[in-house]
C-alpha cells in the first residue's frame, strides 16, 4: 500500500506523543504537589522545615509500603481490603510473640510476615479457586484479620516493643531515616519486578485481558494468587513499620487505612480496571495524600472536618487529572488536523 506510506509516516511522530501523556500524568501530579507545597510554605511557617518534611515522609512510608502491594492486586484487576487488618495482625504478632510466647524478635518478625503471606494466599485462593469477587473475599479476611488481632492482643496495644524496632525507627542512612530508605528500596524492587520480569509482564497481561493472557500460556490464576500474596507481605512489612513508629503492637491502629491506600493508588494513576499503572507515579499519589493530611494538621482544621477536606482533595485531584488528560488529547487532535491540512493535498 504505497499510497499510505506518506500519511502514516507523517502521523508517526504525533502518535509517538501518546506515551508522552503518561509522562505528563506524573508531571501533573508533581505539579500539584509542588503547588500545594508552595501554598503551604506561605501559609504555615512550620511546613517547610526539615523536621516537618521528614515527618510527612515518615508517615507516608506506611501507606506507601501497603500501596506497593495493593498496586500489584489492582494491576491484576483485583482489590485488597484486608491490608489494614494484615498490618495490625502483623504488628501485634511481631510484638506479642516475643512478649507472650517468648520467641526471639527475629522469629517473631518472620512469623508476622508469614501471617501476611498466608492471608494473601487465602485471598488469592478465594478469588481464583472459589471465584469469590475480590471485594467480598477480602472484606471477609479484613474482618477476620482485625478480629484475630484483637483476640490475640486482648484488644489493646502491646508494649514495650523489642529493641530492634526502636533501632529501626532511629536508624539513619546517609542522614535519611532508615524507614524512608527501606520504603524506597521496596518501591524500586517492585518497579523492577513489574517492568523487567516475566512475572511483572504477566501481571499487566492478566489485568489487561485475563483470557488473552491465559491463551498466550500465562498461568493467570497463579499470577493473581501471587499478587495477593505480595499485597499480604507488603502489608505485614508495613505492620513492622507501624510497630516501630508507635513503639507498640498496634491492634487498634490503621482504621480505614485500606481506603486511604486505594485512594492513593488510584490518584497515582493505577487503573482500577487493571493492567495500567506503575510504582513511580503511584508513590506520587501517596505523597499527595500525605501532604493533604499534613496540611490539615498544620492549618488547624477542626478535627471533624479533616476527613471532609481530605475527601475533597481526592476528588479534586482525580477530576483535575481527568480534565488534564482530555485537554491534552484535544490539543493533540488540533495539531494533527493542522498538520494534515498542510501536508496532504485534497484528492477528490
Amino acid at each position, binding site marked *: *500500500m504505497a*499510497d499510505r506510506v506518506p500519511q502514516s509516516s507523517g*502521523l508517526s511522530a504525533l502518535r*509517538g506523543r*501518546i506515551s508522552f501523556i503518561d509522562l505528563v500524568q506524573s508531571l501533573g501530579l508533581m505539579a500539584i504537589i509542588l503547588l500545594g507545597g508552595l501554598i503551604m510554605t506561605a501559609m504555615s511557617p512550620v511546613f517547610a522545615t526539615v523536621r516537618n518534611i521528614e515527618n510527612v515522609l515518615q508517615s507516608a512510608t506506611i501507606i506507601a509500603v501497603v500501596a506497593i502491594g495493593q498496586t500489584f492486586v489492582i494491576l491484576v484487576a483485583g482489590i485488597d481490603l484486608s491490608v489494614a487488618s494484615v498490618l495490625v495482625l502483623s504488628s501485634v504478632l511481631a510484638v506479642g510473640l516475643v512478649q507472650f510466647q517468648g520467641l526471639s524478635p527475629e522469629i517473631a518478625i518472620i512469623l508476622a510476615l508469614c501471617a501476611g503471606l498466608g492471608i494473601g494466599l487465602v485471598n488469592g485462593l478465594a478469588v481464583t479457586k472459589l471465584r469469590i469477587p475480590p471485594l467480598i473475599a477480602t472484606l471477609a479476611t479484613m474482618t477476620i484479620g482485625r478480629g484475630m488481632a484483637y483476640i490475640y492482643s486482648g484488644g489493646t496495644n502491646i508494649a514495650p516493643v523489642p529493641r530492634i524496632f526502636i533501632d529501626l525507627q532511629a536508624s539513619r542512612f546517609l542522614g535519611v531515616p532508615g524507614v524512608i530508605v527501606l520504603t524506597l528500596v521496596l518501591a524500586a524492587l517492585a518497579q523492577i519486578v513489574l517492568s523487567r*520480569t516475566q512475572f511483572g509482564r504477566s501481571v499487566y*497481561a492478566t489485568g489487561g485481558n485475563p483470557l488473552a493472557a491465559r491463551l498466550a500460556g500465562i498461568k493467570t490464576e497463579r499470577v493473581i494468587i501471587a499478587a495477593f500474596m505480595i499485597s499480604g507481605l507488603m502489608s505485614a512489612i508495613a505492620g513492622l513499620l507501624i510497630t516501630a513508629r508507635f513503639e507498640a503492637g498496634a491492634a487498634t491502629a490503621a482504621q480505614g487505612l485500606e481506603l486511604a491506600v486505594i485512594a492513593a493508588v488510584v490518584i497515582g494513576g493505577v487503573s482500577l480496571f487493571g493492567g495500567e499503572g506503575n510504582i513511580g507515579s503511584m508513590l506520587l499519589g501517596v505523597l499527595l495524600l500525605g501532604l493533604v493530611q499534613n496540611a490539615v494538621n498544620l492549618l488547624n482544621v477542626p478535627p471533624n472536618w479533616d476527613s471532609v477536606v481530605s475527601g475533597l482533595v481526592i476528588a479534586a485531584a482525580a477530576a483535575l487529572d481527568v480534565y488534564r488528560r482530555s485537554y491534552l488529547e484535544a490539543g493533540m487532535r488540533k495539531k494533527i488536523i493542522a498538520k494534515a491540512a498542510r501536508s496532504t493535498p485534497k484528492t*477528490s
Partner: protein
Amino acid sequence: MSVAEVISVAEDLRPVLIAKGITKSFPGVLALDNVDFNVRAGEVTALLGENGAGKSTLIKMMAGFYAPDRGEITVDGVVLSPDPSSAHRVGVATIHQDAHLVPAMSAAENIMLGRWPTRYGWLNKRLQKERAARALARVAPHLNPSTPAGRLSSADQQLVEIARAISEDSKVLIMDEPTTSLSPPEIDRLFNVVEDLKSKGMSIVFVSHWLEEVFRIADRVTVLRDGRLIGTRPISELDHDKVIRMMVGREVRDTILTKRPVGDVVLKVSKLTRENVLENISFEVRAGEIVGMSGLVGAGRSELAAAIFGIDPYDSGSVEIGGIAVSPNDPKAAIEAGVGLVPEDRRQQALVGLMSVKSNITLSLLDRISSFGFLSMAKEQAIADREIRALAVKTPSSKTRVSTLSGGNQQKVVLARWLARKPKLLILDEPTKGIDVGAKSEISELILRLAEGGMAILLISSELPEILTLTDRVLVMRSGRISASLPKEQATAETIMSFATTG
C-alpha cells in the same frame, strides 16, 4: 418520459442526509478528512472501505455518538447535534453489528424502548403491544412480540431493531455489517426487508465487507480510504475489481495454489467428546497440510479448537501433538507442545489492548526472552522488530498501543506472536473475519507460505471462498460432529453447505 415523471424521480432522489466537509481526529489518528457523504431517499447507499478507512467513525457520527471537529450533518435540513437522542429525533436509526437490545425485555418493549406509551403516567401495555406489532408485522411477521429479546436468534434480534427504527418513523437506517452473523436464508430475508423499506422511501446506509451483498442490494457506492473520500458512484458503473481498486488503491492478487509435500502427522485427535458440545471427533493434520474446518456458526468448530488448545476441558478422547498427548484444560501445555491458536475474537481473546505492539507479540514468548525470570529487553525488541518486518505490520512504532492499530494489523500482531514461537500446528479461527480486503489476501498468502515451510494448519472459516482456495482437505462440522471429510477435489461450495446443514 413525461415532465411529471422526471420531477418525481428527481424528487425521489433528493438527499435526505447530507454530511458536508466532515473532519474528525482521535489522538494520533486523523479518522476523517473533509469527507462529503449523502444519502438519498429510497436508495441503498453502500459505504465501503478497508478497516481503518473511517467508515465506523462516519457511522458513529451520523448516529450522534461523535461530534465532527469540522463540518456538519443535516437531515432534511435539520442540523444533527452530537447526541444519540438527537439522531433519533431527526430520524436516523442505526443497526449495529451486534444487536443492542435489553435481553430480559420482550420484543415489543424493546421496539418501544424509552418511548413506552403511557396513560396518566402508567405504562399502557396494550397500546405498546399494538404499536410494536404494527412495526414488527412489516419486517418480521413470524415473531411473537412478547418473546424476551434474549431468546431470539441474532437474525431476529436484528429485525426487532429494524422494527424499532420503523416505529420511530426513521428516515435513514444505517446498517453496520448486518449480515456478519446471519445464515444465507436469513440474509435473504433481511434483504427482502431492505427492499421493502426502500420502496417505501426509506434511505439505507449499508456497510459490509461482502462485495457480493453490496452488488445485490446497493444503488450507490461510496468508498473511503484512509479517512478520505475516494468517490461515490452508481452501482451500474462499477464491478468487483473497480470497487476493490477504489478501496485499496491497487490490484489485489488472487492467491495461487501450489502442491505441497505432506509430512508426518502433527495433530491427532481421537474420539474427542464433550457432552452436548463435541461428539466423538477424530481426525489428523499432517505437516505442511492445510485442513479446512467448515460448518455453520454454532456447529462446534471454535469449541473443538478450544478443546485442542486446552482452553476448555473435555469428557473423553485424546489430543496428541507430534505423538505426545497433551493434557486437557492447560493452554500452556499445548503451547509448549507446539500449538498456536489465533482465536476468533482477537480483541477479547488474544490482545491486551493496553499493551504495546511489542509486548503483545512477545506475550506468548516470555519464557523464551527471559532468564531467571528477568526479561531481556534487547531480545524482546529484536524479536518484535523482526516479526513486525516479516509480517509488514503497519504500526508507527513497536511501542504503540496495539488497540490503536487497524483490525488487519492487530491480526498480524496475533499471528506474529505465534510465528515467533515456530509452532508445529497453527489453529486459525476465522483469521480474516472483519479484516479489510488487502490484509485478507496478505494473510492468505502467509498461510500458504507457512504450510510450504512444513507447518500443519487447521483453518476454521465461515468464508467458503477462503476454505476452497486455501485448503487441501475440508472437514465439515454439524452439531458437534464431523459430518464429512472432503478431499480437495470433492470440496465445492454446494457439497460443503449440504454437509453443514444436513449431513
